[in-house]
């Protein structure tokens, strides 16, 4: 501890010294710039959504830390302001932050006919395969090594050189740079030595989002089972076999163990390669949602594979089309869980239809900081096995995003920012 204090003081002193003597020491050894990769929501032309810059190395916040980024999950940044999530109040495991119910939003939505020449909204959901498959999704996933700690921190608990994963707090940087900072140490979760940083990088959005969704689903499953009585079964459909969906399947295996014999789980595969991935999980039915099939054929096929209508649909990459399809597979009183990213736009469109059949469409946010801590423990202890992933150099981000948009990468794609330790 005293050594760390000394080190911090030394850094501060050194910094001051450099500033003071700048005119007389032009050959400074301080690295001023670093590379940043920004991934925007994929639009009409894929080559337009990945950018690379040189940006200044950020200063160390006095109450936070600077992280040397080693691995980052390939996610895109939402163009609009992220919805308010309460980070200040730490959530318990059983609380569900930021659930959006239908009734509150509908009355304020104006559904007018578009004018003749109006361009469509720039934040439309891209219908790329990989997005619908939940292979590519919005988020911020960084795992790295603590490089410096703020000078006002007296009792860190985390030290320079520690491996950490960063919780995606409000105000995370726009894009992945070789260095990033957090304003508060609470946003850092230590990664055990045996866990590769590429695995850790999958956790802060993909796994966390899937975890929160499965926990929400479990609450509904328990309620449905209670209503159905002893012989009842709950039918759950997960759409897609991209990284998010694969996490959901694994988390379902873990969190639904105690009700496992009463839950029928099916996966809607958008790509043939997904069938093998889905079948890794035991006792999972697979239904092919080939996009070239007519909607009624797919709905019939889905009901056939689960012997009837579905009680819960989990669709991270939902579009108007797949949500409409999901609702037609859902039973009366059924629940569709969709990502908060698209809920804002789709709820007005579908709420009346859902109400007619007493169906609910609920949006699910990325999970809480405590949930992230739990995730790290589950993976570290081997209770939760990560989906397959591939590591790519960060300078190949453009190609990686193109492949993800076409669901050509099985599991997750991780960008590596420094040479392998």
């Amino acid at each position: 501890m005293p050594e760390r204090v000394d080190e911090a003081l030394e850094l501060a002193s050194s910094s001051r010294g450099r500033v003071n003597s700048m005119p007389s020491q032009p050959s400074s050894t301080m690295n001023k710039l670093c590379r940043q990769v920004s991934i925007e929501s994929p639009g009409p032309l894929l080559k337009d959504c990945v950018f690379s810059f040189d940006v200044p190395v950020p200063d160390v916040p006095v109450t936070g830390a600077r992280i040397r980024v080693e691995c980052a999950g390939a996610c895109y940044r939402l163009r609009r302001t992220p919805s308010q999530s309460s980070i200040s109040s730490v959530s318990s495991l059983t609380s569900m932050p930021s659930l959006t119910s239908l009734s509150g939003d509908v009355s304020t939505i104006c559904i007018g006919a578009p004018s003749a020449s109006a361009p469509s909204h720039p934040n439309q959901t891209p219908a790329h395969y990989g997005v619908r498959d939940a292979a590519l999704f919005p988020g911020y996933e960084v795992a790295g090594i603590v490089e410096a700690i703020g000078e006002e921190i007296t009792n860190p608990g985390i030290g320079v050189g520690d491996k950490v994963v960063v919780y995606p707090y409000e105000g995370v940087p726009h894009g992945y740079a070789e260095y990033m900072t957090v304003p508060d140490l609470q946003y850092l979760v230590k990664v055990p030595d045996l866990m590769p940083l590429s695995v850790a990088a999958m956790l802060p959005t993909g796994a966390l989002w899937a975890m929160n969704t499965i926990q929400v689903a479990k609450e509904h499953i328990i309620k449905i089972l209670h209503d159905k009585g002893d012989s009842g079964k709950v039918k759950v459909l997960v759409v897609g076999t991209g990284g998010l969906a694969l996490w959901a399947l694994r988390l379902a295996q873990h969190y639904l163990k105690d009700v496992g014999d009463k839950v029928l789980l099916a996966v809607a595969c958008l790509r043939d390669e997904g069938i093998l991935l889905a079948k890794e999980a035991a006792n999972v039915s697979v239904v092919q949602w080939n996009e070239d099939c007519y909607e009624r054929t797919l709905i019939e096929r889905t009901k056939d594979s689960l012997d009837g209508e579905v009680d819960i649909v989990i669709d991270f990459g939902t579009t108007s089309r797949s949500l409409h399809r999901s609702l037609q597979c859902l039973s009366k009183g059924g629940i569709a869980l969709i990502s908060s990213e698209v809920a804002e736009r789709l709820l007005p469109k579908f709420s009346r239809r859902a109400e007619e059949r007493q169906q609910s469409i609920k949006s699910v946010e990325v999970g809480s900081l405590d949930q992230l801590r739990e995730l790290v423990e589950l993976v570290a202890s081997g209770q939760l096995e990560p989906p397959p992933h591939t590591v790519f150099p960060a300078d190949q981000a453009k190609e990686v995003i193109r492949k993800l948009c076409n669901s050509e990468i099985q599991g997750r794609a991780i960008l590596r920012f420094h040479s392998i330790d």
Partner: protein
Amino acid sequence: MLGISDKVLEVCSELILSEKHLNEVMERLRKEIVKGLSKETNETATVKCFPTYVRNLPNGKERGKFLALDLGGTNFRVLLIELGGDNREPTKFKMQSKIYAIPQNIMLGPGEALFDHIADCLATFIIENSMKREVLPLGFTFSFPLRQEGLTKARLVTWTKGFKCAGVENEDVVRLLKEAICRRGGAEIDIMAILNDTTGTLMSSAYRNHNCKIGLILALWLSMIIIQDVEIDVCAVLNDTTGTLMSCAWLNPNCRVGLIVGTGTNACYVEKLENVGLWDSDYNEPAKVIINTEWGAFGDNGVLDFILTDYDRDVDEQSINRGKQLYEKMISGMYMGEIARLILERLTKDGHLFNGQGSDNLYKRGNFFTKYISEIESDKPGEYQNCRQVLEELCLNYITDQDCKDVRYVCEVVSKRAAQMAAAGVACLLNKMGEKSVVVAVDGSVYRFHPHFHNLMTETINRLADPGIKFDLMLSEDGSGRGAALVAAVACHNRTGPGNHRR
């Protein structure tokens, strides 16, 4: 009221077929059918007109329990069908079925793996339905061009609809199926009724020694295969068009034509035996047989070149079966969306749609699905809700109402041409049969789901068919499943010979 853009009208004009075009198509198809039926010219004919060996149509009194397998364009299904209620409701039936996925690697891999997959699905179905010890006739619907050599023997002529399994073309698909079921292992040779001492000795040896090779030979020889104590009697292999006709004929005695317009297209009809040059069996009553035309290959010899567009040639060149199934590629759902996409791509790149700004999704081959055409044409006139949703899915910005109107027009031109071409084929068959009143059984996703296809076909056939011929296009329910059961039922009813005797 917005009109269609001039440039869009101009680009689409080459897809519009005149009455003269359609009459020429009819005449050329008639000639190809005659060539296909004739023994001397069948070898070189493009429309092969295979006899199906199905001679009897159902009469509504068929009874019994049947298994059916359905390998087609989009699904693989196993069905258990029980035909016949009581005397008051003779056409009542019960059905259990299960849909199984066929991954791309199986569609394109070795044929043995495909048939193993089918056998696995069948076994899974039998286990899941806790089927008890019994003998079940099985009808196998194989929706690809087949050259039948008997009711239970048929060779695959060529793969279509995206399949390309090695080692299946020109092979007997019934034999491949039986071998796959035997390969599953665990198939127990039950002691059968003894036909003669030799058989009994051989059976006894096989049972005692668990000699797989002998068991295989016996199973093949006796045409008996067993899964979980259920004895499977493959008594028919058929094409989905035959099943469609049979399923409709069960309810409509005037049904004589079966038509599929779905992932692919094909037709069958009832022909007099005297016209079937390839016929190699008896001429007892009824002196007729269902002919599987395999008309998708019409045009493979160039007789349709006079109406092919560059879009059609592009679709053909990029397909897995280049130079084949030309008529099918102008009509069926597997290709219709791509034709529309190619037109939209050209119009966009030339600056006539979406302000000249396309998207990777629009420019990607295969990304404009045929169902988009049906959805866009389901919008009410002047409304563009479905159209806008489709275009948004293609990541297009700057969509105007004029764009939507033009896109809809492109879809209408493509689908109307398909309907007219299919109608020309049906009219050709009606004229050839010369019967006064005919029901045409139709199935397939394009016919089922496109909002205007039925009417477009009806009005075109009305113009092209000979005066005095009355016809109805009727949607046929589950030709691949129930039709297969009916073929099996009729086949069992008419079967004679030692194979009929069971324990």
